[in-house]
């Protein structure tokens, strides 16, 4: 289960690489040498913007979601539960934060386990019992253990770079056109590269969402390997599924980090959502329960 999800993530990341390569190839075919200069610039811009936020993810997300760090004395019971999972997983104790929001939800971030941060809405702390909360904590710490902040940063960088490249090149098409018109390029190859340039950003976003969905399934599986209790996380997800309130802030930039997506309800289709359908996740956990 975990191994399969990891393989699929690697496959999807490789898909990103192939897509990037296609874009570069298309740029070269269409624009000749002048297109090549764009690629390192685009990759550079994407790298700086994404990796800056990756490195400071714990602090950045705090300000973006309005989460407040809390100490052990503020909520000893929650800290006890988190300590249980750190013992089960062998991870260091993360920083803990609370978001004042009635919608039940939680997230984890941080560039590595040593800088991990997990946050809970006041809603989730009020509505969930011990076992459910333990499942949620295990899911969040599973993200930390699987280094999902890194995985999504890599995905975001490539998707960003592809978007920038194709954006710049489409602009060049309108304004400058092809510089080397007299070159004897094959017209079919030109049409294909044009199509690639236009569709690539869309494909990149779809790949990025697919990676995010795989990481969610993986985190569910890893969480069960920590608690050995699929029923806890399953009933927690049932609570989340039954609840229709949504976290107040709906910034797309941080949508993927929550345990239940605040955006997917209005998502165009399954191809673009950052989380697998919650009923599907519940069904997978149920099948694990019958195994144990």
């Amino acid at each position, binding site marked *: 289960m975990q191994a399969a999800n990891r393989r699929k993530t690697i496959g999807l990341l490789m898909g990103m690489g192939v897509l990037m390569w296609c874009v570069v190839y298309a740029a070269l075919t269409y624009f000749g040498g002048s297109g090549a200069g764009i690629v390192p610039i685009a990759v550079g811009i994407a790298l700086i913007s994404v990796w800056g936020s990756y490195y400071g993810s714990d602090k950045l997300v705090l300000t973006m979601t309005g989460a407040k760090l809390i100490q052990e004395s503020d909520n000893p019971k929650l800290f*006890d*539960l988190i*300590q249980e999972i750190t*013992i089960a997983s*062998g991870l260091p104790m993360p920083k803990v934060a609370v978001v004042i929001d009635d919608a039940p939800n939680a997230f984890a971030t941080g560039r590595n386990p040593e800088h991990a941060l997990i946050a809970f809405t006041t809603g989730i702390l009020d509505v969930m019992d011990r076992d459910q909360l333990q499942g949620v904590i295990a899911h969040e710490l599973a993200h930390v253990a699987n280094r999902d902040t890194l995985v999504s940063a890599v995905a975001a960088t490539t998707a960003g770079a592809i978007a920038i490249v194709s954006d710049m090149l489409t602009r060049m098409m309108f304004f400058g056109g092809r510089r080397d018109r007299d070159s004897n390029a094959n017209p079919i190859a030109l049409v294909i590269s044009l199509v690639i340039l236009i569709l690539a950003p869309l494909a990149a976003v779809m790949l990025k969402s697919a990676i995010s969905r795989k990481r969610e399934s993986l985190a569910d599986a890893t969480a069960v390997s920590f608690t*050995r209790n699929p029923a806890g996380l399953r009933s927690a997800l049932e609570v989340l599924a039954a609840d229709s309130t949504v976290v107040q802030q709906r910034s797309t930039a941080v949508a993927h980090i929550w345990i239940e997506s605040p955006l997917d309800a209005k998502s165009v289709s399954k191809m673009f959502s950052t989380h697998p359908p919650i009923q599907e996740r519940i069904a997978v956990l149920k099948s694990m329960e019958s195994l144990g």
Partner: protein
Amino acid sequence: MELIIGLAAVALIAVFFISQYNRLIRLNITVDEAWAQIEVQLKRRADLIPNLVETVKGYAKHEQSTFDAVITARAKATTASTVADTAAADGMLTQALRGLLAVAEAYPDLKASANFMSLQEELATTENKVAFSRQFYNDNVRSLNTAVKTIPSSFFAGFAKVTEREFYEVEDPQDRNVPNVSFN
């Protein structure tokens, strides 16, 4: 040219040796740390017990045999040192504590007291921590033992002075109770 290829081959082999050796050492250290974690949590539980026994005693004076069982089990648990001894004492104490909590069920005043409720929460989380530290230890022992027994890491086990480690197996009579299955 041959010299460069030769040097590269030697370097590759050296990297392989070092990584195998380090992996075994790392696994061994993780098992040690996991064992230390079990001891920390068992100590935490042992420290809770006198308080818990006193609280229950305040309401249920006539349950001396239950108290004695808990206290003897605690004494055994705090003196055990080997993996097998610790595991056996741990199982006994878990059993005795279950008896103590069952006694508490019969005294509504005790169950309602704030002191008992906070102790119960404390005990619940400690029991979970003990269980999770056992699970983490056993998982790591499993990876270490697999590494010691499988090729290629098995070739380096002697050199790294890493041997198979003992699993932490709790003797819990309740786990042994096979459910009755009838086919009619």
